[in-house]
């Protein structure tokens, strides 16, 4: 066991590199996924069949095929057609497309649950479509979609472990290398579990902060911000005063 721990300590610098690769895939994949999700999510809501059709096809295709096969296909088959990408780029594209397809359903559903009256009020104020989406609809939908996107982000982190099969030296690779060196399967894979757990946990924590922020913008927040918590001044924002309105309202 002490040998194992010594080996692990020796490999900590390599772990740093491995975590970096995993994080690069995760953040790159997540960024691409959210762009794809928003485009496809809105695309599948439009009236035009020319936009909606392809959107649906892309979503169904990437949801319906295995991530490993997509990775292999992009990495080994695409070069046959003359498109050669680095392993990291392949991983980001595959993760982005795959999870973007799932997330587009989340985006679509969240947009659909913003009341129709919000669109109508925005029309009555003569906003353009883009203005409505950016300032009125998306901020409300965003608060609804974050918890579900957080789930997908965690799945994406774990999905990124497959990139080991296309030669990426990520956390999974590091775990396998550790096992090779120590010949201790239990020790190595437990270490791997813990590393993935910590990454996922930190990401969940980050997403919780985003969610809280989005909810507070809608006046539904429950906790003050860090800055407000540590501030010496009493909260001046009426949002935090939590005043109960009398049912009658009356003239202010």
């Amino acid at each position, binding site marked *: 066991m002490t040998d194992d721990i010594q080996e692990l300590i020796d490999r900590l610098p390599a772990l740093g590199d491995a975590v970096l690769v995993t994080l690069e895939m995760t953040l790159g994949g997540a960024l691409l996924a959210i762009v794809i999700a928003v485009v496809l999510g809105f695309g599948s809501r439009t009236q035009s069949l020319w936009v909606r059709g392809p959107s649906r096809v892309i979503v169904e295709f990437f949801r319906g095929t295995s991530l490993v096969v997509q990775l292999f296909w992009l990495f080994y088959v695409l070069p046959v057609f003359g498109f050669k990408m680095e392993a990291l780029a392949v991983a980001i594209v595959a993760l982005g497309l795959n999870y973007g397809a799932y997330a587009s359903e989340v985006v679509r559903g969240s947009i659909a649950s913003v009341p129709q009256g919000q669109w109508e009020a925005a029309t009555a104020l003569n906003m353009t479509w883009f203005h409505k989406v950016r*300032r009125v609809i998306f901020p409300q939908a965003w608060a609804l979609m974050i918890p579900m996107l957080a789930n997908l982000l965690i799945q994406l982190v774990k999905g990124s472990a497959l990139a080991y099969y296309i030669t990426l030296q990520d956390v999974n690779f590091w775990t396998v290398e550790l096992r090779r060196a120590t010949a201790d399967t239990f020790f190595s894979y437990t270490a791997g579990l813990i590393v993935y757990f910590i990454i996922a946990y930190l990401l969940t924590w980050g997403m919780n902060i985003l969610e809280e922020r989005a909810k507070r913008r809608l006046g539904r927040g429950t906790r003050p911000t860090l800055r407000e918590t540590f501030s010496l001044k009493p909260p001046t924002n009426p949002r935090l005063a939590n*005043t109960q309105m009398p049912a009658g309202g009356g003239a202010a």
Partner: protein
Amino acid sequence: MTNTSGDVPAIEFRDVTKRFGDNVVLDGLNFSVPQGQRITLIGPSGSGKTTILRLLMTLEELSGGLILIDGDPYTHEYKGEKWVAVPEKRRRVVRNRVGMVFQQFNLFPNMTVLENIIESPVHVLGKSKAEAIADAERLLEKVGMSEKRDFNTNQLSGGQQQRVAIARALAMDPEILLLDEVTSALDPEIVADVLDVLREIAETTDITMLLVTHEMQFAREVSDRVLMFDKGQIVEEADPETMFTNPSHERTKEFLKAVLGG
């Protein structure tokens, strides 16, 4: 662009038809509203009153006919013999003259009261932020909501939300204001507050108003003309005094008897 001179009506419906699937809501409707007039639309539910307001706000598309605002084509126009939709770019220019207040208020919950009011004056009309805020404060004062300026909308009661919604519509300086059952979602004791605000606007501005309401007393006070609708047609048209005390059409008598409980 705006033609407010002489006798060009603020609103003109020409042969307006609206169908939802097989259901014909409006069938070849013609009517016009002179500048500055206050018109109340009454009639049983499903008679097409709300559809008229929604068509005027371009929340629904016409199935046939034309709507003109100050004589300008708004939703559709004839190019030669062809009936075509007015492009969104030109439609937006005309839409700037029309404002609407909704039954369900529809304030934006991701913005404070003030942000709700200044959003479009700044980003659509291109006012400076300082000017928009000054206008918003004046309007909040007018609707009695100055103290709630920085509140989130869900901290307000229904009546307060509706008064903010009225201020928000007025901040766009509309020539035409559409009021769609604006007190129907409110508790009875708050209705009077909102009606007071509207009464003041009616008295102090020359905005053309089209209202759909079940508040017959209020309609009687503020409107110049009342239109009775049934099955997508105007069955009677009169000044409020005549309409409410001495209606001539059988359908109007039945309807008023039902709503006034008389």
